[in-house]
């Protein structure tokens, strides 16, 4: 059985983010999970990751193909020579909380415009592109009192006879308050 290992890229985090990740790891209830609006937080809105984008187990064949995660449903479809296997896959998810003074309570979601490369065994790679967000990417209604969940899907490009193994990568979601 192949273990799906999702490794988080090591990077320097500002102290507040490091504390926040620590709180997540301890299983703090979701209401207190991520975003606190104060002078030491982002001035107008905050975003926290609650789920990774997981394409799950896939079988490669002599024909290339794709696996698509639907942002709205978290469902998975495959095309071309890609064979769906296993049942562990899901959309990425982020919680957004608006902060600061009252004003238009709407924000936009900016997803990677191009493709993101996933690194696999022995230098093998795959790419993910056509990122999608649910409920939408612009004019999303937000709130200063409760989080708005944005789910993210995408299209994974699997090559012909893609090398078996675990592949991981990262992408960045930007939320901008209007």
């Amino acid at each position, binding site marked *: 059985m*192949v273990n799906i290992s999702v490794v988080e890229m090591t990077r320097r985090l500002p102290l507040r983010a490091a504390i926040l990740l620590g709180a997540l790891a301890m299983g703090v209830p979701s209401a207190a999970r991520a975003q606190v609006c104060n002078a*030491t937080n*982002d001035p107008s809105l905050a975003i926290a990751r609650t789920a990774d*984008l997981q394409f*799950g187990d896939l079988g490669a064949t002599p024909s290339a193909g794709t696996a698509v995660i639907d942002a709205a449903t978290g469902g998975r479809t495959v095309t071309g020579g890609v064979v769906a296997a296993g049942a562990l896959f899901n959309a990425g998810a*982020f919680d957004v909380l608006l902060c600061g003074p009252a004003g238009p309570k709407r924000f936009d979601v*900016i997803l990677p415009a191009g493709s*993101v490369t996933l690194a696999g065994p022995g230098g093998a790679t795959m790419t993910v592109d056509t990122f999608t967000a649910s409920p939408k990417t612009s004019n999303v209604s937000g709130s200063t009192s409760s989080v708005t969940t944005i789910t993210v899907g995408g299209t*994974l490009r699997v090559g012909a*006879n893609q090398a078996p193994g675990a592949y991981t990568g990262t992408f960045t979601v930007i939320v901008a308050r209007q």
Partner: protein
Amino acid sequence: MRRSGDRALAAIAVALFGALPAGAQQNSASREGSIGAAIVQAVSVQKSQDLVLGEFRPGEAPGTVELHVIPSSSAASRTSSGGVALAGSAFSAAEFSLSAHAGAPVQFAVLLPPSITIQRVGGAESMRVDGFRGSIREVCPPGPCASSPYMLQVGATLHVEAGQRAGRYVGTFTVTVNQL
């Protein structure tokens, strides 16, 4: 207090996400998400026996010939329904030998076609085959054994029209096996 905090944050945001447009730092935030995927091992699949539905007589009503696989056994059984009457005694489930990669537990994902069409040799008449089902069994005792210790048996359901023209019908189907 407040202002200096804001400035410090803006500096962090720029350092981490240099692509933010100037002036937008105050109104945006970003977060990195991970993406995971796993390509599972391909398995060598060798056909050792064809799927043979055998002989039968069509009737005045449509019917089916069903080839059943029996879990943990190399045997298969055959039944008919509707106007179809079985004849002869030669039939077999398809059999494939699978070469699993080392690792325990060994799990396979088998993909069978939803339906195929078989055609009369020397003619244009056809019949539909669907209801493909499979069963995998280990063919060696626990401990060291041959390189292809697993057998996949595949059965199916043949749909026969009333008065189906006599003859020999053939077709092909594809099985895809991945090891999880």
